């Protein structure tokens, strides 16, 4: 029992942090936000560099399946670093959801066909979850309005509550409608399947469970990174900005608000480590932990990002300032893959049994 990062884990965290703060600058994020169509919200050059130069795209996927090995603690450290910069990347959808689902529940042939392209960044996959999906054999009919990076995907991993398929984006019966999304670094497309042919995964429950676990942890870790960044930036601003003849950081109410952010963030860090470590160790607590972490970290991020705007005053709600990037990302994380109330209800079900 040792709840601290190992030297290797610390090195991964440092490497990822250095990479994203150097490369995922807000200028580049804003360029990706301004791009339209299929490239909306993706910094292609950053994605290439992340997948190939940095070589951390396969973290959390077994080497046998073509991944980099390592576990979800390491995945979380990478996601935290990306989240701190609000990086405009398809990491959540293409890697944490789709690649993980295929690695956990696909055939060897499916893995070989897809994972190298996803892990190298040459192709992007998007995750389509529709609980009401109808499958006649492997002909799929259904819709999701909220498919992350759906406009840029070559493949979709389509799941219902019990089945999982791969569907090429150019297959007959697949329609993709690009929308404008509040968080422009997280574009959501509307994907409609009308009798589209799917290639079934062999172990849908394993695929879905793994995708959701990785998705929840990735969101929680991104939220942690984002929340810490809002605190760091707001502290820096508060030391500089003078009002009423004093740096605003010297006002006690301001100090206490920042302290409240730190209190939540420290808990969020415990939550991410706990969830990732419990999942890696397949502990009994793992499912409770990932739901708890997703809900807690999303709330923390939203609170912190809202405070970032508030504590910057007028400049905080301008387009020019970065605060709104954090704020919108925090909202996107809150509503992605189940909102806080749903995740807490899952926690409650673990403790109290299902709500009749």
């Amino acid at each position, binding site marked *: 029992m040792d709840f601290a990062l190992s030297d290797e884990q610390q090195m991964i965290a440092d490497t990822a942090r250095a990479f994203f703060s150097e490369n995922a600058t807000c200028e580049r994020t804003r360029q990706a936000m301004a791009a339209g169509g299929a490239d909306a919200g993706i910094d292609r050059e950053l994605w290439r560099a992340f997948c190939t130069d940095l070589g951390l795209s396969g973290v959390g996927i077994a080497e046998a399946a073509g991944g980099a090995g390592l576990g979800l603690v390491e995945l979380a450290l990478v996601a935290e670093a990306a989240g701190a910069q609000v990086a405009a990347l398809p990491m959540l959808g293409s890697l944490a959801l789709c690649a993980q689902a295929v690695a956990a529940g696909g055939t060897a042939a499916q893995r070989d066909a897809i994972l190298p392209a996803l892990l190298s960044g040459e192709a992007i996959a998007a995750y389509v979850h529709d609980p009401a999906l109808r499958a006649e054999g492997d002909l799929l009919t259904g819709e999701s309005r909220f498919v992350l990076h759906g406009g840029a995907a070559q493949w979709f991993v389509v799941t219902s509550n019990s089945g999982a398929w791969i569907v090429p984006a150019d297959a007959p019966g697949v329609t993709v409608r690009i929308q404008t999304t509040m968080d422009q670094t997280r574009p959501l497309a509307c994907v409609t399947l009308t009798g589209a042919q799917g290639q079934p995964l062999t172990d849908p429950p394993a695929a879905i469970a793994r995708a959701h676990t990785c998705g929840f942890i990735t969101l929680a870790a991104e939220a942690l990174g984002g929340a810490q960044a809002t605190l760091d930036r707001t502290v820096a601003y508060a030391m500089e900005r003078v009002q009423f003849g004093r740096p605003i950081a010297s006002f006690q109410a301001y100090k206490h608000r920042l302290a409240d952010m730190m209190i939540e963030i420290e808990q969020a860090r415990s939550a991410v480590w706990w969830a990732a470590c419990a999942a890696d160790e397949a502990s009994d607590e793992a499912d409770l932990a990932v739901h708890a972490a997703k809900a807690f970290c999303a709330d923390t991020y939203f609170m912190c990002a809202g405070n970032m705007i508030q504590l910057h005053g007028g400049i905080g709600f*301008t*387009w020019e300032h970065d605060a709104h990037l954090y704020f919108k990302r925090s909202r996107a994380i809150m509503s992605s893959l189940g*909102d806080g109330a749903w995740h807490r209800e899952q926690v409650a079900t673990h403790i109290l049994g299902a709500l009749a």
Partner: protein
Amino acid sequence: MKLGFSPDEELFRAECADWLNGQMSGEFRDIKGVTQLTAMPERRKEWEQQLGAHGWSCIGWPEQWGGRDATLAQQVIFAEEYAGAGVPGRVNHIGIELAGPTILAFGAEEQKQRFLPDIAAGRTIFCQGFSEPNAGSDLASVRTKGRLEGGEWVVNGQKIWTSLAHISDWIFVVTRTEEGSQGPKGLSFLMMPIDQPGIEIRPIRQINGDAEFNETFFTDARCAADSLIGAVGDGWRIAMGLLAFERGVSTLGQQMGFRNELDAIIAAAKANGAARDPLIRQRIAKAETGLRLMRYGALRMLSNTNHSRIDGAALTYKIQWATWRRGLGELAMDVLGQAGEVTDGEAYEWGTLPNLFLYSRADTIYGGTNQIQRNLIAERGLGLPREPRG
């Protein structure tokens, strides 16, 4: 104490409703239901003039200046019917609610004659120049300078958050007219025409993609010597008086806008099933309660004729509505779910509820942040020691 309206007042209500509904289904049907403050500015200036032409622009003002000497109850009724008919917000709200009342209270007779009829008629649109980049919450540290030169005031400096300056005709500006003065002393209150070479307006794009606010630069900008309201050095006193007008009857009109927003949330919740979620039901009940309490707080504040004592309802009103509305935006998004985060088309433009969510983050900042409001409440309302300046 009495909340009901008299038969005469109900007659007045019918008269308001008739005229407003007639306009919104007739000549001005194109602006019905518009909520974004920057949308369709030209048509909405015409609407200001239509209101003025029919005597509905500022019914609480004295008849002499284009009003109707309306009672409080009548003003309440008009505000309710105005919003109920789906009429968009006033692009000249600064003129009607701040500039006009300030001129009425502090202006000279000839200033009243010069400005008030034109404001009432919707011919002169006003905006305000208070904040500066380094004086966001701290009006007393204003640096924009005004000096008298050749019978004119010459102004240099920069204002920020000048809402709707780009469609306004006049701006009132707090300037430092006494060289070397500090803090609240040495400030004066000037009315300046905007259309002149010395004034440049640059829009500030906001979190919601819209640009309601501006930076306004003054470079040897000029106005006539008699454009100064009150006396030289009276600026602080007048600015403080003006902020009190912000808590006037106009709050009721603002609340009717909130009513429409909450109704849109309720409709969305009924439509998508969120209305069956006990957690959402609690939050809607809280929001409804908060809105009602704003209404009755405003009525207390407006009915309070005993101005000798501190009016707690008035002092706490700004933070109350701002905090409530910010929470309303969060509720809206939680009711909508992810559907609130997408919009069709390529433009970054949002419908009423997502826009509420984004825009309302500003509510707790402009017009005195929540932090400043709490200082004011603690110091003026509770008599606690003042926050020291550095």
